[in-house]
């Protein structure tokens, strides 16, 4: 044991430091690949486009109801409800109230919208402007 000394402790200490550092770098690299996947999955899953599309279609019916206040839009509503169940796995309900509400000299149809596709639930009350009154 004549030549034994403790110089080797530095080697072991540095090895531990470097290994901890490399472990964290590898861990970050491992996680980074999952981030892009979950983000794009989240975008695909969330039905932003479905809701925007449904809103614009209901507003088209609101426009039609304003121009034809005595006619019923029940058949059109049934179209949307049936097709959404058949093709989009979504439960949709909406109602265009043809009794206008008056807010400071302007009249609006209140429209309620309910959307649920099992993942996303969305409820809204839209007011459709129909003119001065």
């Amino acid at each position, binding site marked *: *044991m*004549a*030549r*034994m000394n403790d*110089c*080797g402790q530095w*080697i*072991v200490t540095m*090895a*531990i430091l*470097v*290994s901890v550092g*490399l*472990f964290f770098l*590898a*861990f970050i*690299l*491992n996680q*980074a*690949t*999952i981030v*892009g*996947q979950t983000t*794009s*999955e989240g*975008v*695909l899953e969330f039905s932003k*486009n*479905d809701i*925007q*599309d*449904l809103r*614009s*279609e209901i507003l*088209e*019916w609101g*426009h*039609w109801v304003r*121009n034809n206040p005595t006619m019923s*839009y029940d*058949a*059109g509503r*049934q*179209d*949307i409800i*049936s*097709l959404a169940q*058949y*093709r*989009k796995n979504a439960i949709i309900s909406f109602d265009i109230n043809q009794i206008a509400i008056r807010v400071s000299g302007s009249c609006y149809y209140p429209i309620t919208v309910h959307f649920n596709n099992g993942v996303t639930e969305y409820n809204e009350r839209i007011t459709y402007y129909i003119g001065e009154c």
Partner: protein
Amino acid sequence: MVNDAGQFYSMEGIAAAILMVVTATLVLSATTLYTPQDVHISDMQLEQLGYDTLKIMDTPLNSSAESSLETMIRTNDYFSFDSAFLNYLNTKTNGMDTIQYSATIYFRKSTTGTINQTIFYQSRNPSGNENGVRVSRWIFINNTAGFGTWSTKPSSERIDTTRNQTVLLEVFLWRE
């Protein structure tokens, strides 16, 4: 002369070996995730592109006008749809993309209450092996302006021509 000075080198060697094996395992398990991640990102981009294209075509000049997409569906004008849709989909800053589509219209027959479907147009016959996405758009059909060539379709594939209605245009998109 035999002594124990080499023991430090042995210990360092073992530590380094464990370190390299653990690091290599972590890195290799990370790279195997690259493929599904890339597929999802391009799916997401293609889906958004499809929705945006249909939205562009379904945007009217003003709130009382009919959009060009509504006119095409109402009159069964699939030739105009084909050229406009492919053009919007595939235009790039440099050259053209290679996206193909198959468009189907789903509608409700008010007499029977059933949901029927008809193929509107497809730029190419899908083989079934495409890695594609499905986008859709609600289309408002106004019955006061005529129904074009819908009358040439068989009755089960014909939308109701007696009422205002909403039909669903569903487009399957893939890149060739």
